[in-house]
């Protein structure tokens, strides 16, 4: 699969002079990284869910206020690693000073989903550094796909492709959590379309999802090199 040619990084746009661009960049970066940061704080520093939420919110607030995100230099490594280093320094300082941050800090609060009881159990089982890193990576991927799905939904809204997104959501998202994924025939009946159309709609939606994932990945990485490395980490396929 060819990589798109241009690179539009929102990680770098957080220091844009254009306020609107800066705001959108910050919103995307926070949306992509909030959950990995929260879980990392919980797993690494062994704090309660509430305290981890406070620390995660406080971290992003401080990062914006003090311009940490804007100070990131792509040449010095991955954005993810930089963010983690900032986070660890921030939490260590907070705990040393014995301070608890108030929620908010001007950020939109991203609620934690509590539907996933397994996720909570897994947090408490993060035993060592490699577990923490793997968990951070997985949560980062989850955030990335959540953003891509959101972008796909927005793209389909109000167009003839709304049904394609609805089918994709029923089959590839919700269907995975059902005891048995719905059959194409059932979906065809439910949506009032032929089975062949279900197949076509799903193919289209998956192809568009791939594009959305790559676009989002481009946005939350800072350089071409980082983008490629993250894509390989996300999808595997590293050449031997």
């Amino acid at each position, binding site marked *: 699969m060819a990589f798109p040619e241009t690179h539009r990084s929102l990680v770098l746009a957080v220091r844009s002079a254009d306020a609107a661009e800066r705001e959108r960049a910050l919103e995307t970066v926070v949306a992509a990284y909030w959950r990995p940061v929260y879980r990392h704080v919980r797993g690494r520093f062994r704090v309660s869910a509430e305290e981890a939420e406070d620390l995660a919110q406080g971290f992003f607030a401080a990062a914006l206020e003090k311009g940490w995100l804007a100070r990131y230099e792509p040449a010095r490594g991955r954005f993810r690693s930089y963010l983690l280093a900032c986070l660890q320094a921030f939490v260590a300082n907070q705990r040393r000073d014995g301070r608890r941050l108030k929620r908010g800090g001007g950020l939109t609060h991203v609620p934690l989903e509590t539907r*996933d009881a397994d996720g909570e159990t897994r947090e408490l089982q993060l035993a060592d550094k490699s577990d923490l890193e793997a968990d951070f990576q997985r949560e980062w991927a989850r955030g990335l796909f959540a953003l891509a799905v*959101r972008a796909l939904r927005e793209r389909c809204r109000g167009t003839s492709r709304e049904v394609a997104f609805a089918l994709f959501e029923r089959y590839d998202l*919700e269907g995975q*959590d059902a005891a048995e994924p719905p059959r194409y025939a059932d979906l065809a009946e439910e949506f009032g379309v032929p089975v062949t159309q279900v197949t076509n709609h799903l193919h289209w939606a998956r*192809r568009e999802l791939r594009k959305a994932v790559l676009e989002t990945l481009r946005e939350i990485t800072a350089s071409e090199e980082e983008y490629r490395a993250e894509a*390989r980490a996300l999808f595997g*396929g590293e050449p*031997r």
Partner: protein
Amino acid sequence: MNTPSDRALDRLRDVAQWPDLSGTRYELVGEVARGGMGVVYRARDRELERDVALKVIGAFAADEDTVARLRREARILARLEHPGIVPVHDVGVLPDGRVYYAMKLVSGKRLDELLAEGLPLRERLRLLLRVCEPVAFAHAHGVIHRDLKPENVMVGPFGEVLVMDWGVAKHVGEARGPLAASASAGAAPHATAHGTIVGTPAYMAPEQARGEVERVDARSDVYALGAILYFMLTGRAPGRGAASPDATTRTWAASRHAPAAAGIVAPRELDPDLPRPLEAICLEALALEPERRYPGAAELAADVSRFLEGERVLAFPESLLGRARRFASRHRTLLLVLLAYVVMRVVLLLVARV
């Protein structure tokens, strides 16, 4: 839905990588296997109304080397027409820019899975002979596989054996053995850079593991076949250097092949019931120096066949008594019938004299 669950996330990762088959004659059915170079999918060929396997380059591994390797693999497979080598139908580029080739869809079990079910020794050896056939055929056509291992062998429901994954295979010219090595340089410029190590460590010949590209030839495949035989005999890969010889572990150092296969635990150490000639065949294939191995897969297969036929094998100077014992154990029923016949004749003769 805002945040995908674990299962949904795995699903999204998968579907985001699925190849774009729009406008082609193929329709995606599902994923079959995943390797370092690409992913194999099951697809429906709408024109011929049959299922095929599509090997598609990894979604984000489309660098020049990988593309060249996939194309080269397709070309090598297309040239090697043998029942033990999967035939290629088509090669091309998908709408999403990924290179693919279509091949026969192989059903059955991987050799390692089949062996885990427990097969009698003779059946295991017959399987090895079937693995050797396509490899010998490839050697005769100047191609070496370089990544032979149980996971790359499929055994079909009717016992057909197919050697898979020729992704790191190399064309070394028409000649075989030492001549082939000298013919390899420049034969496939994108194949693998000089010194690049390809293959699977536990089954890899020492010269291959050291990245000595110019020394890698048919005998490197013989080493891998020896390692497969070792796996068949002991249930584990030889893993040179992995075993640490101690008081309870006799290595091959005590045998006539001491400098050759040193570092590998002798199969009979792991299973004393294994016949000595078979152990010798295995360790000759696994010799450290290529010069001490069988020159090709055909020669290795011939020695295994000799063992199966109860003949003297080249790798082991078996005494007449040893061979007689082996013959006797193999043809016990026939010998008992013959013995009973002789005893009966003697008794009848004695009775007639009385």
